[in-house]
């Protein structure tokens, strides 16, 4: 990933430790605006930790993170403002015990959007994820696939500049996977949203990603265009992983 003026996230010397154990190290990385970056690697490689740090949910032990050309501010208000420019969807959707519509509208209300705009945008997004008829239903009664669609809708309605997805299609049936993937590509093409997606599904990484990161044992081993990495990985670990030979 070239360091150009289109970079939206710039990372240098990032280290995360739990106690004395180093769980993540990313020496240098730039994420291009409007890209879809797949993050692959075996379990325990640090993928979720990486996304959590990017979403400012966890603080790195060392290193510098820059968004939109500026380092992460230390003042809580400025940090909240930055956090509101991105959104993370978790593997297990934590829906609030309220209606589907209220779940989708939650982020907009938190940001102080008008009731009318909140209603309009929520309904529009619910329609896109095929849940327009279930707006009044209690979110807790939804199936796993529907719940994940609501979680994605909750993110989409905010039109974030950066969308962080942590295995959003794990445990979903093929129809729901296809729907979610189409939503991700729609958001990326329509709003130029920068997407970082953690996935264990290499086919999905190949289908969606323009760029690819391979994490292994807490280290960023390889990065580059998805096409190049799938065609000719430079590192043996990467090759072993994408050819399904890595035992972990």
């Amino acid at each position: 990933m070239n360091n150009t003026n289109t970079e939206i996230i710039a990372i240098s010397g990032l280290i995360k430790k739990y106690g004395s154990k180093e769980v993540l190290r990313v020496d240098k990385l730039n994420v291009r605006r409007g890209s879809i970056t797949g993050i692959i690697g075996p379990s325990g490689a640090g993928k979720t930790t990486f996304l959590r740090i990017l979403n400012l949910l966890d603080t790195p032990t060392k290193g510098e993170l820059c968004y939109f050309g500026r380092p992460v501010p230390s003042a809580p208000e400025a940090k909240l403002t930055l956090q509101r420019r991105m959104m993370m969807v978790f593997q297990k959707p934590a829906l609030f015990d309220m209606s589907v519509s209220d779940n989708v509208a939650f982020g907009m209300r938190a940001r102080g959007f008008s009731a009318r705009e909140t209603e309009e945008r929520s309904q529009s997004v619910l329609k896109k994820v095929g849940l327009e008829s279930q707006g009044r239903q209690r979110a807790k009664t939804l199936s796993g696939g529907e719940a994940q669609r609501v979680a994605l809708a909750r993110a989409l309605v905010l039109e974030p500049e950066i969308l962080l997805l942590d295995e959003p299609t794990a445990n979903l049936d093929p129809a729901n996977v296809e729907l979610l993937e189409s939503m991700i590509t729609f958001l990326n093409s329509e709003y130029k949203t920068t997407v970082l997606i953690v996935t264990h599904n290499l086919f999905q990484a190949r289908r969606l990603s323009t760029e690819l990161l391979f994490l292994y044992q807490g280290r960023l081993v390889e990065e580059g265009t998805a096409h190049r990495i799938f065609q000719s990985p430079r590192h043996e670990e990467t090759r072993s992983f994408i050819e399904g030979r890595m035992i972990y």
Partner: protein
Amino acid sequence: MLYAISQAVSLLLSFDRGLYQVIFLTFFVSGSAVILAALSGVPAGTWLGMQPAPKVRWLTRLIYTLMGLPPVVGGLIIYMLLSRKGVLGLLGLLFTPAAMIMAQVLLVVPIIIGLTAVAVRGKSGEILDTLRSLGADRRLILLTVMRESRIGILGALVAGFGRAVAEVGAVMMVGGNIEGHTRVMTTAIVLEVNKGNFAFAMALGIILLAISFLIYSSFYRLLSGGADE
């Protein structure tokens, strides 16, 4: 037992002014104590439950210890504060319902904080991450986590009310069991037992439980919002 139940019913139907005064004071004192304790205990417990466990381990241990504070010790603390030579002696609150409320607040606050923290900790992990990712500010995070944990918080309030309405040592010490002024159900029961009126004491106990049941039922409906239905 059947005799005690029939006596309880006839006592209630007698519309005895003294009895109804005791019932009213009992639920006024304990209800006020729980409301006051909840106003500080629920937000404090929510905050505690949202903190990383290692960061608040000593505070949590202290709260758990205070959950078992013996009522007589709680009563003694308030007694010393309110006695003529105490810090708050000038207020002249000793042997008044206000002193009884203060003593019960002291006993109930740790229970509400501790159980609310447990309820919130069980819920808050993923919800907290989602709220932060959605860009909620601290106030909205606190309110939403409280809303999501409301069944557990209801449990904390019920436990707190149970502790308040059933305790006798603290209210006896700071209230003095003065007839028509600070006598509540539990102190009245102790008095009747001391007088040897076991059936009458049992009847008072049955009335206490029956009214508590009605209060808990409406409490449950109000706070659960039908979430379990």
